[in-house]
């Protein structure tokens, strides 16, 4: 067993975190302002709005969409999105025939530059364990009932490749602008547990 897991009297996590922060900050090993910057970056700046821009552009620009499917990392960098957990991005396209859904069974790997930090459901052991065994049932429990003739492909991250789902463009959105389309795209659709609706 690991060294850090002895105490049976559990220390509340807020106290435990504060204790570790004090120990590192008072020795100059960690700068609390750098911590603030990391936190603010993922609270305010990097989140699913990035991914939604990629999706809306792919829906309205066929050449961009082709580049996105051929070289996800390069096409996404055109929009300025890169950084930790985005070293190599593979984009998979949902269609009436095939539905893609992403998981990381071993931890919770997730394309941070496009979607920010993972939501609670993505980190839930029930999702991590079951979506690679009974994805159709798991998706239905999460509110996505797929037609029985839609094939399902599950992508489980093992290496530093990060998978990102290009959802289907909903019908009736032909007249919408790229910005209006982006506003429809949800985080959950870009992981594959939901579809985009108009």
């Amino acid at each position, binding site marked *: *067993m*690991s*060294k*850090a*897991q002895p*105490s049976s009297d559990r*220390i509340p*996590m807020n*106290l*435990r*975190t*504060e204790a*570790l*922060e*004090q*120990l*590192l900050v008072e*020795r100059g*090993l*960690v700068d609390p302002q*750098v*911590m*603030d910057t990391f936190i603010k970056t993922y*609270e305010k700046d990097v*989140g699913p709005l990035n991914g939604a821009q990629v999706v809306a552009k792919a829906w309205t620009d066929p050449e961009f969409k082709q580049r996105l499917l051929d070289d996800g990392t390069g096409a996404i960098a055109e929009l300025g999105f890169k950084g930790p957990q985005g*070293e*190599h991005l*593979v984009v998979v396209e949902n269609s009436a025939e095939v539905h893609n859904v992403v998981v990381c*069974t*071993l*931890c919770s790997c997730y394309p941070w530059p496009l979607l920010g930090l*993972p*939501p*609670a*459901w993505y*980190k839930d*052991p029930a*999702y*991590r*364990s*079951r*979506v*690679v*065994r*009974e*994805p159709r*049932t798991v998706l239905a*429990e*999460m509110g996505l009932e797929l037609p029985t003739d839609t094939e*399902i*492909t*599950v*992508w489980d*991250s*093992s*290496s*530093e*490749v990060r998978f990102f789902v290009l959802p289907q463009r909903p019908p009736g959105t032909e007249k919408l602008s790229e910005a209006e389309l982006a506003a429809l795209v949800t985080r*959950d659709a870009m992981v594959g*547990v939901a579809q985009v609706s108009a």
Partner: protein
Amino acid sequence: MIEIQPASGVADMGGDSGWGRAPIIDPDEVVFPEKWEGRAFALALLSMRVSGSNLDAFRHAMNRLDREHYIDDGYYGRWLYGAENLLLDSAIIAPGAVEARAANIAGGHVEEPPVPESSKPDYAPTAGGSIRQIDAPRKFSVGQRVRAKTMNAPGHTRLQKYTQGHVGTVAIVEPAQILPDTHAHFIAENAQWVYTVSFDSRELYQENTENFTLNTDLYEDYLEAAS
């Protein structure tokens, strides 16, 4: 001498049953529901640097946690415990230091252990990130049948147990990357090709199962040719 501490096994949960119903999506979820979670997130990222360690070592530091520490305090709980493991491994902090400080913050008067002499790993990556340019030829090609090996090594691996021993087809050749199994233990980068392999669900699970395709990106060392 490199001390390899085994994973507890709890993190490798793909295909397991017993974790209950699928989660409910909360569309209004905030990034850090509790303030300490943001602090733990940032501390963990910085602890990798402070301890002279790396992302693979951090993942293994979490995989070493027992079920209680891995699960009960959630995702950022295990990040914090994982960060503590890295800092203890490199003797940046002493065993008991966090507990003693927490007691003192709470109004106690506990003697805190002295700061130890640090012992960071004598190891550094050859470049940033995980992708490397390598000259080695690819051992496998798209369309080839491959079997995920059965691995019994005690240390870190990214080869999920539910894929082990099963045969799939190479779907994508991914960029060459450093091997977590050795990088996590500060042994070597072992940069090698990675392949996204497609498995048929009926190959993975013997009993009646849903019909679907499972794709996962596996390192070359995890695979062997299958007929």
